[in-house]
């Protein structure tokens, strides 16, 4: 992993981009990293484009500004590609992850000529198969862990299992679905 | 134990800021008795106990609690605190209280 990884999340109010950023901060913290997870706040509006951020580092993080030149970008809702400049400032050494059922070939032309790595994942399909509902959070989280290499996959799975076991102590069926979604995402991100 | 300097009887307008209580808090009850508002009086109410029927209506009307009551009967005015406002004169149904000029 690099000294400092900066990540920007694009989503729509209510989709859980902020939650995904906080979850990523959580798992990175659990393996001993210094983390920041924060949303860019405005009046909460369901469906409006929102941005959230992560910084992950081995060193103490002091900076408190938003992230303008991220190493990685995650796009939770592909319809944002038409309205938000999601690759703005994005490092070409990094990459962008997009939740879509489309192929990379279909997506790349929508990225304003971005030359870094492009990853796609069908978080809807994974979530609906594993959880029976559309919660893009978990697949997006797993895919981001994989592409940013903040930790190895096995460690990630065991950390998530411990944390979800705690969170869903009374709902084992939810735990199982979530774990399934995480594992599927690790396999299917491309 | 309350420090002597904080006792109300030891506080007057010559006391330095260092010797007043924080926030001017008062740690005694009834300390307003130490302040003789009767000194402000220009006109003085006088009660005629021959006309007074001890209805006690004047007592709650007195804004300065200057009409003492003992064993169900009002006594003479507490002239140390009566400011001479004259409300008692107005409310007495038996015209038993009159104002005289001066203290």
């Amino acid at each position: 992993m690099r000294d400092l990884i900066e990540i920007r999340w694009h989503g729509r109010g209510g989709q859980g981009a902020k939650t995904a950023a906080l979850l990523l901060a959580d798992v990175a913290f659990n393996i001993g990293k210094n983390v920041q997870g924060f949303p860019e706040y405005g009046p909460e509006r369901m469906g409006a484009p929102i941005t959230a951020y992560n910084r992950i580092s081995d060193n103490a993080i002091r900076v408190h500004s938003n992230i303008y030149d991220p190493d990685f970008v995650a796009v939770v809702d592909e319809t944002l590609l038409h309205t938000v400049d999601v690759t703005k400032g994005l490092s070409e050494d990094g990459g962008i992850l997009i939740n879509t059922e489309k192929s990379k070939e279909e997506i790349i032309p929508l990225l304003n000529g971005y030359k870094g790595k492009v990853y796609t994942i069908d978080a809807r399909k994974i979530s609906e198969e594993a959880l029976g509902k559309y919660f893009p959070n978990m697949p997006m989280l797993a895919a981001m862990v994989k592409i940013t290499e903040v930790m190895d996959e096995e460690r990630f799975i065991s950390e998530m299992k411990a944390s979800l076991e705690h969170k869903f102590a009374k709902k084992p069926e939810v735990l199982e679905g979530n774990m399934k979604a995480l594992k599927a995402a690790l396999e299917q991100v491309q | 134990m309350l420090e002597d300097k904080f006792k109300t009887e030891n506080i007057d307008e010559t006391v330095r800021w260092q010797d007043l209580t924080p926030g001017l808090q008062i740690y005694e009850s009834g300390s307003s008795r130490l302040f003789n508002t009767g000194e402000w009086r220009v006109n003085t109410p006088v009660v005629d106990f021959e006309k007074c029927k001890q209805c006690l209506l004047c007592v709650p009307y007195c804004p300065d609690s200057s009409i003492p009551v003992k064993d169900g009967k009002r006594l003479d005015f507490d002239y140390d605190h009566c400011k001479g406002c004259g409300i008692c004169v107005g409310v007495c149904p038996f015209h038993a209280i009159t104002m005289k000029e001066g203290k």
Partner: protein
Amino acid sequence: MAIKERMSGNEAVAYAIKQINPDVMPAFPITPSTELPQFVSNYIANGEIDTEFIPVESEHSSMSAAIGASAAGARTLTATSSCGLAYMWEVLYVAASDRLPIALALVNRGLTGPLNINCEHSDSMGARDSGWIQIYAENNQEAYDNFVMAYRIAEHKDVMLPIMACMDGFITSHAVENITLLEDDLVKNFVGEYHPEHYLLNKDEVMALGPYAVSNYCMEAKRAQAQAMMNAKQVILDVAKEFEEMSGRKYGLFEEYRLEDADYAVVAIGSACGTAKDAIDRLREKGVKAGLLKVRVFRPFPGKEMAEALANCKAIAIMDRCESYSANGGPLSAELGAALFKNKNQAEVLNIVYGLSGRDMTVEDFEKIYEDLADVAVNGVKEDSYRYVGVRE
């Protein structure tokens, strides 16, 4: 020993509240401090603390109820932001003049208008003359630590003043970061129990509080209150020293970052200071002698101490995250400017307004400020020293 965690600023302060287990919390929710009464209510519902929560219909009421509870002898707190603090205005002065050591967790947000919910210091700066101690945090760690220290300062017999522990709205309150927490028993022992000398529910002593004061007495009361604020300086330092012995984390009236040999200094409050530190490290690598003075305690105002710490600087940028519409710069500018003059500092000074209504402040913004400082140090301040940073123009 220390507990490593990750938490938002609001979670961190709520955690401190849980560890302190104060007696009474009247509060009315307002963004971005809403989570504080929410977390405390959860602790109470879960039986983790036995604080009495009083739901009220406004912030004027929450502060009034806090005054009542504190006067009764209870360790009391409330939380608010922005317009909520403004609505408390009248009674803030009452809490201070009645010498009640209430703690207020303030999550800084700008005052309307235009209507906005983001970080600015206009709320607490507006209340700077209300007689409350004000301590500011750079991050969640400091917000937690400051709250753990708050009652020790406020309840000290030489002080007996209410205290406002401030953190930046959203930037600190809602951002999850690493934090090191103290064990429950350490906090409990450090804060101790509250045994006020005089209180209304004392069956052995009658008491009257908040009397009308005629001119013959009122000024003396205010002079005594001013003394309490002056005394707070030493108490804040003493409490910080004891806190350092317990936690290993050092606090003063302000923090100096690479300031000792700095030619160019930024003076600022709150979360932007962390960003400034990154800028300073970058500039130092290039040989630029940049430094920071981070104001932690704004009330009492450590003017002389700060002026002395800045004595060798050639140029200083005093940064306000709020306007005071004085046409002359913000409140920190005004007060520190006066202190520099009294101390006969010779530095050129820029009075900078930044970060209004949550406007982001970046490392690059700070680098530009240091560039400007290097320029005015040589050429003097040619245009008005009162400037905006980060505004479109």
